[in-house]
């Protein structure tokens, strides 16, 4: 057997089996300097939780503070496009440190809080039922295009308060925004197209909501603008963030969760026996077991001595959710898929002040999908036992997932 290069984050091993790959790092060198990509790789659950909760030591303003050229490299003629992307992203809430972060989050947080979100559950359950009514008679589907992709766009469109006939267009925009996490050298072109089109599309809605507020998310941001807490640019880029942040992530929860159930028929049978009783802990276990987001980043805001390793101001850091969620020091039998696991302190939504704004919404979507599937589909059979993943270091995204139930 050849030994694996644990510094090649795009290797077939890292993409295909992040649990084996990053698990090996976690057990051998949990605070690892990756010389190839020039960044720290953090893999222990306790270390990640500590780091992410100390936001004053580890900045989220990665794009603003990291002056290194984009990686993987981009087409040389795209420098200006890259600057546009930088400007766009650096105003998003996820890229802010305190005190700006607290102000921005204060405006949008209550809209997404559990009590407020619960009101959207019936809409989500209906959207799931509509999709499944159409799919069920076919006896099979590709989970990604047929179920996992349409649901989040439908839900976000509703939350944003845009008309249903615009959904298809929003989905096109979302697809372009997803180039943020891709490696193709031409990616700045579709990405800036998507960002510019998003700004153009959303602007008239903001104008309207400034005059006539409604119960949607754009109204919340427009009120923030009225109160002087957001400027117009920030309103627009954060609306785009919402469309983007809730898209591929939720898709992956649905697809990776369905795959886990297909590979663990005993757990599927158990959920089917009591969908209402088990769907919440089952959704948490799907989030933990095969997390939609594998890793994310920080940039050191001061020199930190971390278990004897010297992290210096300005050092880049990736923290590996996929490794933390399988850490034997945090979870009993971490590689087992157990839908009754409780408590389940996974870090799939991060931790600390940037804890996922859309976590309650994503949970609702996951719960309603798995509940409906459990009620309607007795057996999940993979058409092809081998699956393939997109070559992203951030997202755990299946390329396709054909299944059948006949």
């Amino acid at each position, binding site marked *: 057997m050849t030994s694996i290069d644990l510094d090649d984050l795009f290797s077939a091993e890292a993409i295909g089996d992040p649990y084996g790959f990053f698990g090996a790092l976690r057990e051998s060198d949990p605070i690892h300097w990756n010389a190839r990509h020039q960044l720290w790789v953090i893999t222990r659950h306790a270390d990640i939780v500590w780091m992410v*909760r*100390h936001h004053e030591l580890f900045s989220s303003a990665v794009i603003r503070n990291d002056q290194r050229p984009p990686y993987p490299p981009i087409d040389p003629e795209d420098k200006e496009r890259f600057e546009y992307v930088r400007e766009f992203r650096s105003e998003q809430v996820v890229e802010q440190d305190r005190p700006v972060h*607290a102000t921005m*989050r*204060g405006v949008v*947080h*209550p809209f*997404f*809080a*559990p*009590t*407020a979100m619960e009101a959207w559950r019936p809409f989500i359950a209906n959207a799931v039922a509509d999709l499944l009514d159409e799919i069920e008679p076919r006896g099979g589907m590709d989970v990604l295009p047929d179920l996992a992709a349409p649901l989040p766009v439908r839900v976000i469109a509703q939350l944003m308060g845009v008309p249903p006939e615009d959904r298809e267009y929003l989905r096109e925009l979302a697809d372009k925004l997803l180039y943020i996490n891709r490696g193709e050298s031409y990616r700045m072109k579709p990405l800036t197209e998507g960002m510019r089109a998003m700004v153009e599309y959303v602007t008239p809605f903001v104008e309207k909501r400034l005059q006539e507020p409604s119960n949607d998310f754009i109204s919340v941001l427009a009120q923030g603008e009225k109160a002087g807490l957001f400027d117009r640019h920030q309103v627009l880029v954060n609306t785009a963030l919402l469309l983007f942040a809730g898209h591929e992530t939720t898709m992956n929860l649905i697809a990776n969760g369905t795959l886990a159930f297909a590979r663990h028929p005993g757990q599927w049978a158990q959920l089917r026996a009591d969908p209402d009783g088990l769907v919440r802990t089952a959704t948490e276990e799907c989030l933990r077991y095969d997390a939609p987001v594998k890793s994310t980043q920080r940039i050191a805001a001061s020199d930190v001595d971390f278990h004897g390793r010297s992290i210096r101001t300005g050092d880049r850091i990736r923290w590996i959710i996929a490794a933390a969620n399988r850490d034997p020091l945090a979870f009993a039998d971490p590689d087992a898929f157990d839908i009754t696991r409780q*408590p389940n*302190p996974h870090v799939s*939504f*991060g*931790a*600390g*002040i940037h*804890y*996922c704004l859309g*976590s*309650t919404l994503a949970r609702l979507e996951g719960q309603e999908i798995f509940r409906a599937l459990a009620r309607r589909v007795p057996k999940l059979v993979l058409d092809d036992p081998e699956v393939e993943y997109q070559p992203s270091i951030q997202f755990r995204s299946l390329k396709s997932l054909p299944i059948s139930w006949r």
Partner: protein
Amino acid sequence: MQDVLKVWVDHTRCVGNGFCVMTSEKVFVHNEDRQSEVIDPGADTPEKVLEAARNCPVSAIQVESAITGARLYP
């Protein structure tokens, strides 16, 4: 008469999001693990405490009436 609240934070759930501390610094503080602790449930109005509880993204904040024992959140 205003209700008297019994308030505590479930540390198996709290992710240290800090929204409760932003909502009422008189009632909630972060401990050294950056999890929330209740210092004085009576230091702010019951409405403020319930607002913090409703906005906790993981529903870690537990609220009961100290008078009737009734569960107020979640």
